[in-house]
């Protein structure tokens, strides 16, 4: 069983918290410590952003995180090395890489899947690569026991939901709003209704993210979803903190979110 499936099984109905940070932000030497801080705060799964020069689906907060990481030359290979380092002290918390297709394509799908599996990665979400375009990558990932994670949006038609259901493993990521990461126009009732409707096709756990900024929203959405994904709010915390205080502040924030969704 994959680490992701094991994680949801162990939760047995309790809700998962999935924090997101960008690898290499604010500095590559800090990422592994921040990942451990997320776990200490109560993270069930970690989404680790792979920085990209053109993050089309991201709002200003994660754009800046990407720019900070790239200023230190963080590459996909560096990100895999960070995960391998994290795995030395943590063998159970699933790690999902989230990013854009081009760095993965450049790395080579088969080589990437093999190296990612070896580093201890569990799932991969390439934002700009929906299932119809992901054939070769998804096959490479599954061949190495990794879960390809796909997005479902408010605009996704029922046909496409069914198609995504056929290709996804691990969990699916419901995008709570039409917009970029960190946007502020989330409608809680509409999202809850949509997630309930998705269950007709989706048997995997459903995580929800984009625009979840506080414990209140996290709690409200956790009644409908299986996992709550929080990104921009955490990246903002890293941005506001000093390198010394970031880990502690992240841990406190994650703990408050985790407490809210229990």
């Amino acid at each position, binding site marked *: 069983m994959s680490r992701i499936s094991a994680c949801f099984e162990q939760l047995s109905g309790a809700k998962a918290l999935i924090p997101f940070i960008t690898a290499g932000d604010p500095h590559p030497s800090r990422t592994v410590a921040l990942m451990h801080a997320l776990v200490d705060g109560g993270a069930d799964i970690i989404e680790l952003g792979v920085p990209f020069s053109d993050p*089309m689906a991201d709002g200003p907060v994660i754009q800046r995180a990407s720019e900070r990481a790239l200023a230190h030359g963080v590459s996909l290979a560096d990100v895999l090395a960070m995960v391998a380092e994290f795995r030395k002290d943590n063998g159970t918390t699933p790690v999902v890489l989230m990013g854009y297709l081009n760095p993965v394509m450049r790395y080579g799908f088969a080589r990437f899947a093999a190296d990612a599996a070896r580093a201890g990665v569990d799932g991969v979400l390439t934002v700009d690569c929906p299932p119809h375009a992901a054939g070769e990558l998804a096959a490479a990932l599954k061949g190495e026991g990794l879960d390809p994670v796909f997005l*479902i949006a408010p605009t996704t038609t029922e046909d496409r939901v069914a198609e995504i259901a056929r290709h996804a493993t691990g969990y699916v990521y419901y*995008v709570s709003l039409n917009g970029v990461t960190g946007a502020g126009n989330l409608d809680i009732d509409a999202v809850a209704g949509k997630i309930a409707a998705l269950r007709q096709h989706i048997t995997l756990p459903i995580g929800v993210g984009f625009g979840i900024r506080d414990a209140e929203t996290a709690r409200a959405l956790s009644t409908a979803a299986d996992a709550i994904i929080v990104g921009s709010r955490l990246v903002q915390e890293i941005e506001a903190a000093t390198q010394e205080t970031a880990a502690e502040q992240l841990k406190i924030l994650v703990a408050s979110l985790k407490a809210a969704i229990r």
Partner: protein
Amino acid sequence: MDRYDLPDARGYFGEHGGVFVAETLMAALDELKAEYGKAKADPLFWQEFHYELKHYVGRPSPVYHARRWSEMLGGAQIWLKREDLNHTGAHKINNAIGQALLARRMGKKRVIAETGAGQHGVATATVAARYGMECVVYMGAEDVKRQSPNVYRMKLLGAKVVPVESGSKTLKDALNEAMRDWVTNVDSTFYILGTAAGPHPYPMLVRDFVSVIGEEAKVQMPEAIGRQPDVVVACVGGGSNAIGMFYPYIPVEGVRLVGVEAGGDGVDTGRHAAPLSAGSVGVLHGFRSYLMQDENGQVIETHSVSAGLDYPGVGPEHSHLKDSGRAEYTAVTDTEALAAFHDCCHHEGIIPALESSHALAWAAKVAPTMGKDQVILVNLSGRGDKDINTVAGLTGITL
């Protein structure tokens, strides 16, 4: 030659093209594809399109024999397809009208666009005013500085111009920001993409709208000289003016198709914007094509004196035409383009856009190696009024 019928149903030109976007946009692209399919089969749609091109744009644009300049070069005869004479001063208006008519069919009241040189932004602002639509144009903060006359022009036309401060602050970042707007406002908004790039069906529909350039030339050249030209040449940024000229000529045997990219300081310096000449295959802005990227798959910054060519990617159909060998692609430097800019001003009384000056520079370089009875048709994609500040600045003059 074999029948050329691309893109395929999935939006591919050979191995290039496709749809690589966030899930939120998939439904909108499917809708656009379906709606364009209907419009394409609707004679009334094309009737209105051509009416607008004739009465609003001033088409057909003439072909013009640059006789004095050709004589001075002492070789092939250079002819110019005068897209600079269009309303708003470039080929971009053809595409903007086509897409605005589609937007109207789809009931969208708000249009957005990205722009580099500002020509596509001006064209979009123009058609938005013409059809009564709200218009927002994203423009890299660097380009806002370089092309200030066009920024003011867009504002005069009632558009909101948003300077984009992220990344390299040029065209690619403006495109990122336009995509972010579209994702956020996808229900109300039509994205009028400014070049023959982006996710399917954009490269196809942009090509179809700008192909009027080559369609006209194919009729005009035999009228003017009794035959088709030996070479057709166009500058390549995202590739719209070039594909507009090339596409109708693809099946015409014996016509050489040459695309000229921005060589910046020189392709061997790395400071350029020439993905077909020196890039590798990648995915950016929703499609697969040649791309300027580093060994880690990060998109690298481009350099060109011409804002409209300062783009790290290129439309997928050009990548396919390169792979298939039907078209050839090369680059000229900033210096060569500027020399051609001045020569065209002095010898022909035409101020060309800096983008188009790249195609002119290639023609001026190659004409002397050809016979006097041979003909090069250059797509003069736009006029250079917008560039006078840039050119003056390069010679130390502040206007």
